[in-house]
């Protein structure tokens, strides 16, 4: 065990990991500000160097921490750098929780983050807001790392809000387009709804614990304290977990708060890959895994999480089947895969959830970056019906995209197979059957729509010859990230090969000390390898056939696919319009709110009450009083003297009589 780096204790070194991207953000922010007027050209090589070097350095540090500074399985909490809040017994320090969970997350974030930074240098090379873009991207990494490494809930909330803010900045990156700006606002506002739940949960935890008369060293909301005193939270565990899950719903785009994620595709594609696929949206899953000791107290909350998760998975997958915008498909696919992760943590299989989180980060980032490469090559075209036959023009993109599609579809032996297999197996053993059936259906649908997108984009005949002729492969900076991520999408799952396939189940064994639930392991053990093998075989077969169907339909028999849509127009319409959820929200929530804001809050409260009554009313009262009193200001000195004398007389009378 090595606890020093260049003589600096490990508990200090970990703070460098988020600090590096933060420094990058500061530097790029200054550059962006200085070049804002457009007088000075943006020093692109310098910006690129700083922006890319910081995440890479952070990645290197995390790797070092991971491999060479191994600690006891349950990790440790660093002493606080300083106490951020210390009011009475409410203490929140800047302290990090370093354990296997946060380190794995840290690796994903810095690793995938670095790749996406590299990719972005190519993708954004012609954009005027180059420095601004990297400011936000670096800042996002900082916030995300704070979220992941945070040792207590308030600090986690800082990261939680920070990533939400950066997400808002980056979705609305091209804010000149009002539609894109409003997509950013939508994401922000929907996230606020979730954050409200998160805050309430924190209040409830603090209130409950502070009334017990405990004296924790690190504050009531640090994870160590919570784990130690989890017994005291038994009675309120269900509301706490449900409220926290409301936060997770917002951040991780689950029903009913998922609506912002498809719109978030308005941002630059690397942003979609990093924030809205690989890292930020998985924060909810991470949070539940981090607070597993609370969630296991409340079976109700767990079941709720699982139900919402798998419903979202199926719901989003259905929508994804008919979408024609390549990024929208991926967005709904992300929602769906996040549902899978919640399904996993909901049934108690935290490690499977994190496992899928990791593999998903690889292949979904690759898919998004691949779609970005396609969009880049087609000069902004996002409609899959106008693509087709791009394989010959963009071979690297096509191959990497294809490998990732195989991974997400759950084909053996790609990464998605192992993680999805683990989730479905654990869901089958631990959760209700109906949820498993929904998950099973989703697995097939996932394979179907991903193959559909791949077939429509890269296979078949070019449908728009003009676009096709001008298509070109992306520069190396972009394809490099694609290749690395594609390799990871292939091999990423191999760390968790289950024993039923003669693997050693490394990932799960490694996480076992973190999630010490004997009952869980017994149940899994009890189910037996035969069940697992059967299940994975059935799932694989089902997904394979769905994929094959989509492959045939959309690469060769395109007419049948189109006829199918025409034959059942109602279903097609319903799916294409995303079950009209946006419209329903518009009618039920946005419009009434708009009406209340407009008629009651603005026209009545603000204009009538505040403006007319309070603001102008005060002024007019004063003015009236002034005008009335000014009648006394006749300028006749003797009048004043008389008033003065009467006053004096009254005073004397008061004292004398």
């Amino acid at each position, binding site marked *: 065990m090595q606890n020093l780096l260049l003589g600096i204790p490990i508990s200090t070194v970990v703070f460098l990991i988020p600090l590096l991207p933060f420094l990058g953000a500061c530097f790029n922010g200054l550059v962006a500000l200085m070049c804002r007027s457009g007088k000075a050209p943006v020093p692109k090589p310098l910006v690129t160097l700083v922006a890319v070097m910081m995440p890479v350095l952070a990645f290197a540090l995390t790797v070092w921490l991971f491999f060479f500074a191994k600690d006891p399985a349950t990790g440790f909490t660093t002493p606080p750098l300083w106490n951020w809040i210390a009011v009475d017994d409410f203490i929140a320090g800047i302290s990090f929780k370093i354990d296997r969970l946060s380190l794995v997350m840290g690796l994903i974030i810095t690793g995938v983050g670095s790749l996406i930074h590299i990719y972005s240098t190519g993708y954004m090379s012609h954009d005027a807001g180059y420095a601004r873009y990297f400011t936000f991207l670096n800042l996002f990494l900082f916030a995300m790392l704070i979220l992941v490494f945070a040792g207590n809930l308030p600090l986690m909330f800082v990261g939680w809000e920070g990533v939400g803010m950066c997400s808002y900045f980056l979705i609305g990156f091209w804010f000149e387009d009002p539609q894109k700006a409003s997509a950013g606002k939508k994401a922000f506002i929907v996230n606020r709804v979730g954050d409200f739940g998160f805050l309430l949960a924190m209040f409830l935890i603090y209130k409950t614990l502070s009334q017990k008369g405990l004296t924790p060293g690190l504050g009531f909301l640090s994870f160590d304290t919570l784990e130690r005193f989890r017994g005291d939270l038994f009675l309120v565990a269900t509301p706490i977990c449900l409220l926290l899950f409301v936060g997770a719903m917002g951040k991780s785009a689950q029903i009913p708060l998922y609506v912002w994620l498809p719109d978030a595709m308005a941002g630059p594609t690397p942003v979609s890959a990093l924030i809205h696929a690989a890292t930020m949206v998985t924060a909810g899953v991470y949070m539940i895994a981090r607070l597993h000791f609370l969630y296991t107290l409340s079976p109700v909350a767990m079941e709720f999480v699982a139900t919402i998760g798998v419903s979202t998975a199926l719901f989003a997958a259905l929508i994804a089947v008919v979408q024609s915008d390549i990024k929208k498909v991926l967005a709904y696919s992300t929602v769906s895969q996040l549902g899978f992760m919640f399904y996993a943590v909901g049934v108690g299989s935290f490690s499977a959830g994190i496992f899928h989180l990791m593999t998903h980060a690889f292949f979904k980032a690759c898919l998004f970056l691949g779609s970005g490469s396609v969009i880049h090559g087609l000069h902004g075209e996002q409609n899959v019906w106008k693509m087709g036959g791009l394989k010959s023009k963009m071979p690297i993109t096509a191959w990497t995209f294809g490998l990732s599609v195989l991974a997400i579809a759950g084909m053996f032996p790609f990464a998605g197979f192992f993680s999805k297999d683990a989730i479905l197996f654990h869901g089958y053993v631990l959760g209700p059957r109906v949820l498993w059936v929904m998950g099973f259906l989703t697995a097939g649908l996932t394979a179907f729509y991903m193959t559909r997108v791949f077939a429509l984009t890269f296979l078949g005949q070019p449908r728009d010859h003009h676009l096709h002729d001008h298509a070109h492969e992306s520069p190396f900076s972009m394809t490099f990230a694609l290749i690395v991520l594609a390799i990871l999408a292939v091999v990423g799952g191999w760390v968790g090969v289950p024993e039923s396939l003669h693997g050693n189940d490394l990932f799960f064994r490694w996480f076992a000390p973190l999630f010490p639930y004997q009952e869980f392991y017994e149940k899994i053990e009890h189910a037996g390898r035969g069940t697992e093998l059967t299940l994975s075989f059935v799932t694989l077969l089902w997904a394979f056939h769905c994929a094959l169907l989509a492959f045939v339909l959309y690469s060769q028999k395109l007419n049948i696919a189109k006829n199918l849509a025409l034959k059942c127009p109602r279903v097609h319409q319903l799916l294409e319009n995303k079950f009209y959820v946006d419209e329903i929200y518009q009618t039920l929530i946005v419009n009434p709110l708009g009406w209340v804001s407009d008629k009651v809050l603005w026209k009545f409260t603000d204009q009538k009450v505040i403006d007319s009554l309070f603001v102008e009313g005060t002024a007019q009262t004063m003015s009236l009083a002034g005008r009335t009193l000014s009648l006394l200001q006749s300028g*006749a000195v003797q009048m004043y003297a*008389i008033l003065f*004398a*009467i006053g004096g*007389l009254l005073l*004397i*009378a008061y004292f*004398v*009589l």
Partner: protein
Amino acid sequence: MQLAFFYFFSGLSILSALFVIFFRNTLSAAIALVVTLFGVACLFGLLEAHFLAAMQVLVYAGAVMVLFLFVIMLMNLGREELLKIKLAFLGIIGVITGVCLAILLVTRFMGLSAPLLSLDLGVEYGTVKSVGKLLFGEYLIPFELTSILLLVAIIGAITLARKPQS
């Protein structure tokens, strides 16, 4: 004897004070004021304040009144400027206020079971020497400040009185 003097001088000063405020002619009012001040000076004398009685005659009846007359002459008020006392509404209110004040104060002090003014006083009481001792001893600083006040008044009067430079 003293009582007779008291009634005479107080009656004199009150009467002439009334003349001051009721004479239409400013000059007559000024002359009446001289009489008032003289009467008050005599009352000072009756109160054994001989130094102040002298000062009253010198400063008030002398210097101040000369200033008043000077100004009256300088203004050379025409006939129409010899203002009539018009008992306008304000005037009536003023009179009522003043009368009320007088009634209030007089009734208050009449009812006072006032001590006699028969205190046995030293020979030095009210002489220049004793007042001077106090002024240059205990009240030196106020006394010096008074000189500054007078200086300021002189400068102020000069500033006000000279012709505005165009």
